[in-house]
């Protein structure tokens, strides 16, 4: 057992307890120290005459309530992978008896591929309904959510008109890409199946930075499955991705970077995948995975810079009267590209867990793409969504309670847009505060396209179902 998974190394200091957002909100969760190392220690071996801890015990400790936000990992002075040990308890708790309905709705969310395809398949019907009879259509959507065990308070993203792969191919310019280095885009279920705007923005920026973007067949990264304790499903997804991405890598080159705009996907591919799939192929794959922010601040930085120069020239050419006012101060020029800011940026938990720093705000700040408002230290925490945990009927209230300090902090600001890399965070913040949200790459794409606001370029905003501020939980 690696050192990081050794429960015997835990001295019970409770630093993880001080950091856990779920414990702070919910007395039913025994906390990371208990559900992680303490429970794992007990599972090592039973005492004479005592029942071996099993699913019932794991469920009684509230193991299913952990959101896998990794705050505990980042608080442990001994470097114990607390959330991984809690994850083992979650997997055990998932085996506890539950109603067929709970099992079904839990599985639905854990299996994002299936859920996403379900939603996409209903896409045409939803579009038609929203056109012809919006209120009725919304009502039907709400009822369907209830039937599936999901919370009707959540807003579903608008059904996209064009899928991401189709858009990608239709906008490809092969003549420009002949000499470009390639990269594989791991778009994430949200961008692939629900809301391609993020994928489109990412692709535009990467292409502008001089890359040829491939979007091979891929499946869910497995993060929702891991978060629900569905270990086998997560392993299946990981194996599938190793195979599919491996094939593409063989075609494009073994060192082709894999870039994802969703930090949960990046974390799953980089850290969880090599644990679920033994072998060299998985490890090599994991070592090539980049978060989009990391990539743009790293290998693509110079390409991005050139793209920016090009845009500024184009903007100047397009409005010759403005060129007369051109000042030697580059930052003033850049500020003309400012989209209608100001922004607030929310660091997703999984991005913090990757440990790469707050790259997008730095990038956008350096490019002069807008000012950032400071929501205060309370906003640095977990928004409470927990990937998809906040979508279920039971999880909705809990997620708002867990994320309350963060959501309240954003509710008091007046940014034009709240930016965050993680689609779950955007969903939660939008639902709770009523503000518009976007992935920071969308602002970047707009800046490169020389337009004022990314929102204008994009399709109709999703119809929100509830907008009365942050609903109070019972």
């Amino acid at each position, binding site marked *: 057992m690696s050192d990081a998974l050794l429960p015997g190394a835990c001295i019970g*200091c409770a630093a993880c*307890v*001080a*950091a856990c957002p779920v414990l*702070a909100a919910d007395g039913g969760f025994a906390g990371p120290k208990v559900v992680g190392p303490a429970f794992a220690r007990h599972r090592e071996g039973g005492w004479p005459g005592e029942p071996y801890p099993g699913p019932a015990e794991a469920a009684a400790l509230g193991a299913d309530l952990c959101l896998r936000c990794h705050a505990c990992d980042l608080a442990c*002075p001994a470097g114990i992978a607390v959330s991984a040990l809690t994850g083992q308890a979650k997997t055990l708790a998932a085996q506890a008896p539950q109603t067929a309905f709970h099992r079904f709705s839990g599985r639905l969310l854990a299996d994002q591929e299936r859920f996403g395809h379900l939603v996409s398949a209903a896409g045409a019907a939803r579009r038609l309904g929203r056109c012809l009879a919006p209120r009725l259509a919304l009502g039907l959507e709400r009822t369907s959510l209830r039937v599936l065990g999901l919370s009707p308070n959540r807003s579903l993203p608008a059904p996209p008109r064009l899928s991401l792969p189709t858009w990608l191919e239709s906008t490809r310019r092969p003549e420009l890409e002949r000499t470009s280095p390639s990269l594989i885009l791991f778009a994430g279920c949200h961008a692939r199946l629900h809301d391609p705007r993020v994928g489109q923005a990412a692709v535009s920026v990467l292409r502008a930075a001089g890359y040829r973007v491939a979007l091979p067949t891929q499946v869910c990264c497995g993060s929702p499955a891991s978060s629900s304790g569905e270990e086998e499903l997560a392993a299946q997804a990981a194996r599938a991705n190793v195979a599919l991405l491996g094939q593409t890598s063989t075609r494009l080159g073994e060192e082709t970077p894999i870039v994802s705009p969703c930090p949960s996907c990046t974390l799953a591919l980089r850290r969880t995948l090599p644990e679920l799939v033994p072998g060299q192929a998985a490890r090599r794959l994991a070592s090539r995975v980049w978060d989009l922010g990391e990539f743009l601040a790293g290998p693509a930085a110079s390409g991005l810079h050139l793209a920016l120069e090009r845009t500024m020239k184009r903007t100047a050419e397009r409005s010759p009267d403005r060129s007369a006012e051109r000042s030697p101060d580059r930052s003033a020029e850049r500020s003309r590209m400012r989209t209608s800011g100001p922004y607030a940026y929310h660091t997703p938990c999984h991005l913090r867990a990757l440990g790469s720093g707050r790259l997008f705000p730095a990038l956008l700040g350096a490019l002069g793409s807008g000012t950032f408002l400071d929501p205060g*230290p309370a906003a640095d925490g977990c928004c409470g969504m927990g990937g998809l945990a906040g979508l279920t009927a039971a999880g909705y209230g809990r997620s708002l309670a867990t994320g309350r300090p963060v959501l309240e902090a954003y509710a008091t600001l007046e940014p034009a847009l709240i930016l965050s890399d993680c689609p779950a965070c955007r969903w939660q913040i939008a639902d709770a505060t009523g503000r518009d949200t976007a992935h920071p790459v969308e602002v970047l794409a707009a800046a490169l396209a020389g337009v004022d606001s990314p929102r204008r370029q994009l399709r109709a905003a999703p119809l929100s179902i509830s907008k009365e501020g942050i609903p109070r939980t019972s």
Partner: protein
Amino acid sequence: MTYDVVVIGSGLAGLVAAASAAAGGAKVGVISMSSGNLGLWSGLATGPAGGGRDVAEALCFFLETAERAGLPYRRAAASAGFDLLAASGRKVRAVLAPETMAAGDLRGLPTTAGGSGLLVAGFTELADYPAALIAAEARAWTGLAVNHRSLSLGWEVGHGSGPRIARLFDDRAWFSGFLDAARRVLIAEKPWRAGMDTARPAAIAFPPVLGLFAFRDNLTALSEALGCPVFELPALPPSIPGQRFWRFWRHRLEADGRVTFHAGRKVVKTGVEDGRCLWVADELTRFQARAFVLATGGVAGGGLLVSPSAFFAVTAADGEDGRQDQDRWSVDPAPDTPREPLFDLDTAGQGPDWSTWGPRTDRDGRPFQRAGVEGGSEAPRSSGAGHRRKPLANVFVAGWLLGGSEKRPPEACLSIVSGWRAGRLAASLAAKPDGERGGDPR
């Protein structure tokens, strides 16, 4: 990734060093596994801090940064520091204390016989803070009149704890309800002790859970509503004051724009050439910088590792029958000392003094209490392979990794002062164009 200064470790010393280096103009990267022992830290800057201009500057810097971060600290008027009641009922001294605890300076509290004394207020659901016991111990140890009251938060049985209560205190609506209840419960209708002229306590002490973020407003409101100073007592982990420090300082440093935090990264390799560190790396990334601050903690923080061979460095000589003679002790001529794993720095062991071994022990007899890097905070030497006892010119050591002094084990002020110094030196070194080792202006 390249920075001017890389700080390894983000406990108290690491955060102060990062702030200090950023204030010195450097672009700082903080690489750390975790928030160190901040989750255990009571929040008190215990001392003594020592004397000298350096120390004064360091403490000033700390106070300023804390103020800017939104988590103000106070310095005691008396030179001996604050005299505070702890959650054990005993007294603890501190050079600096968070504003939430500073009002609890026992020197400033009325202790006259007719006075109404101190009220220790607890929560029945906070099992870690038994108000009645704290009050009893406080009476015995301080001689003050101390009473206790417990407020019930009305929870059903569940895993109640400090963080959960702190979350409630951040909820404005809940807090205004709490204010009413507190007034009713804590201010008695009639004097609660014979000889008292008033029902109002002279001061009220709470556990340190009055909000992770809204504590300033809460304490002000409580003081106004209850008509007396209200403060928090330092207590055992899970520590909300420590968590506050981590969240507020990290936010401030990130928002200021010069510091980037790389959390959850364990440095496993270092690149040293010719007495200079060029880079440090975890499994994925290499971090380059012109100067480095090593603030990984001492034995308590996990920055110094004690192996059995370091523990048993003093052994009993072998007796005649092959069993060890427990009355004769010999010192291993080349004892193992605790290991500093990143640069393999030379450390001074100060292991257990086995000649005084026995069931009665006092704190001075505990092993490795003063273990630390040999030779001080600048230009630490390493005898590890490849370093060959050359001083590392651009590595500065801060915090409990330095170990304690001859007389005392390390204190929190050591982290603050050494962190400030290391950050400042690292920043000025990084600013030099040719990277030559800068001299200390003193």
